[in-house]
């Protein structure tokens, strides 16, 4: 029996087929699984549905590379630098091809994933009433409170085919520890049919089980564990590395034109074999600069009895 630990190429090859729906960027601006996204691009996946609250340039890259036919998101852009150029070109000019956009807000996307993980068909809310996100959307149904008749929006459940979640550490079965802001990591993982865990460290089962409250989700959901140090760069991973702000800025400038993006894509993804190649292409000492300058250990916790 093949275990769950595999290379990124194997994980993407087996669990992210053409046409599937994939949740990424669940922790918002941190823990973004860029290494996984880049491998999806390298394997030239097509017609993916990208799902995520905001994506901070990962979705922009996948859209520009032609992998996505649909985006279900609250926000697609470059958080510290501005608009997402490939997203714009796709929406405004069908370049590289047509892109369907299912607009959510951060709240409705998290409700949709929560409903998915709960096995509930929808969850009602009062957000977005009166906005232009509602008319014609498949994500929302207008409804009303049975007692008062007050308007409600029923947010329909989302159940992605696969979630790709970056974490600090995991054992070989996918029992994983994750810390920092969680965004929709838990709801998204529970709502998805399978989860690919991308871990900075693969550690012993004993280490993970020493702190079961820190475990993100049940390993029964996990189909693959990829050991990929620096897998979230340029986004930050608490305790491991900070955010590479300059990288976002450079991408923003490079991707202003289709040609500029093609060149960026070639240099940073297509001409490179894997994450090791990507890291080697970073300026000398960049990784060192991003490493924590200070440890900040959590207070001890005793599970003894």
């Amino acid at each position: 029996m093949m275990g769950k630990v595999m290379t990124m190429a194997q994980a993407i090859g087996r669990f992210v087929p053409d046409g599937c729906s994939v949740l990424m960027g669940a922790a918002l601006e941190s823990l973004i699984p860029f290494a996984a996204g880049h491998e999806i691009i390298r394997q030239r996946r097509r017609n993916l549905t990208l799902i995520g609250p905001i994506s901070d340039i990962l979705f922009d890259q996948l859209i520009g590379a032609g992998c996505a036919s649909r985006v279900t998101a609250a926000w697609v852009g470059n958080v510290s630098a501005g608009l997402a150029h490939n997203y714009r070109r796709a929406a405004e000019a069908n370049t590289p091809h047509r892109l369907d956009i299912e607009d959510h807000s951060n709240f409705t996307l998290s409700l949709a994933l929560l409903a998915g993980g709960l096995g509930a068909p929808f969850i009602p809310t009062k957000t977005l009433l009166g906005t232009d996100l509602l008319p014609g959307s498949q994500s929302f149904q207008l409804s009303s409170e049975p007692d008062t008749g007050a308007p409600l929006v029923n947010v329909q459940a989302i159940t992605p085919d696969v979630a790709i979640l970056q974490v600090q550490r995991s054992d070989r079965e996918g029992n994983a520890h994750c810390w920092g802001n969680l965004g929709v990591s838990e709801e998204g993982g529970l709502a998805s049919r399978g989860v690919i865990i991308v871990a900075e460290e693969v550690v012993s089962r004993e280490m993970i089980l020493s702190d079961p409250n820190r475990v993100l989700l049940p390993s029964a959901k996990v189909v693959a564990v990829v050991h990929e140090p620096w897998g979230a760069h340029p986004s930050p991973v608490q305790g491991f590395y900070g955010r590479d702000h300059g990288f976002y800025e450079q991408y923003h400038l490079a991707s202003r034109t289709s040609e500029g993006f093609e060149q960026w894509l070639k240099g940073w993804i297509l001409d490179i074999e894997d994450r090791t190649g990507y890291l080697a292409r970073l300026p000398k000492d960049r990784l060192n600069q991003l490493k924590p300058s200070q440890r900040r250990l959590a207070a001890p916790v005793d599970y003894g009895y």
Partner: protein
Amino acid sequence: MRTESSNTQYTMQEVMVAVAARQIRDGEMVFVGMRLPLLAFAVAKRMHAPRAVGLFECGLMRDEPAPELLYTMSDPPNIAGAIWSTRMINLMGMLQQRAVQLGMIGGAEVDGFGNVNTSYIGSRQRPTVKLPGSGGAADIASLAGRFLIIMQHERRRFKERVDYITSPGFGEGGDWRRRVGLPGGGPAAIITTLGTLSFDPETKEAILASHHPGVTPDEVCRQTGWPLRISPAVHETTPPTEEELAIIRHYDPKGFWTRP
């Protein structure tokens, strides 16, 4: 692009941060948005609202500003020392519970009833400009006790009617929010690069409340795409104090957000 006024030099972004900070009341729960609001929260905490609490939709709550400049709300200095690191939905739930008194959002287009567009300029099917979308802004606008809109003041952005309502202001004015069922109180102010607009309590029209130092009411009107009403009490915006500026520059020493 600094403006000289009294003895102090400051940028319009610094004015906006100071004005936004003054809207935060002590003890309030504040949904802090990206960019300038990050700084406004820090200024308010240090100046007049030491007990204000900041909520960051990525899943964080803080009662002290992060010790260094934040490029995004998930940056490591915002996580370390948070009073709660959790799932986004918990913070959004507090918003819908009406536990959050104030939120701050940005925008690409706004209209005279404070409706904000950050989604599509032009048609939805074939937009001229595809903007990033709501993020959490539509939720803040729908659900917060009140919210601030912080924007660049240009005629093309201040439109009689926005192309698309992402974040609801007062809709068509009057009791529109109540009619469509929105629980939050709506926008309290639009803080711009030229001045501050508040809203008529009855009609919910935007009204020029103050113009920033060096800007005339006339200039504000010229940069506004509808006939802007001017408050009888219109006045010059109180510029940022030395103390406010010191705090802003402590957190943003290189002017990443405040010297564009």
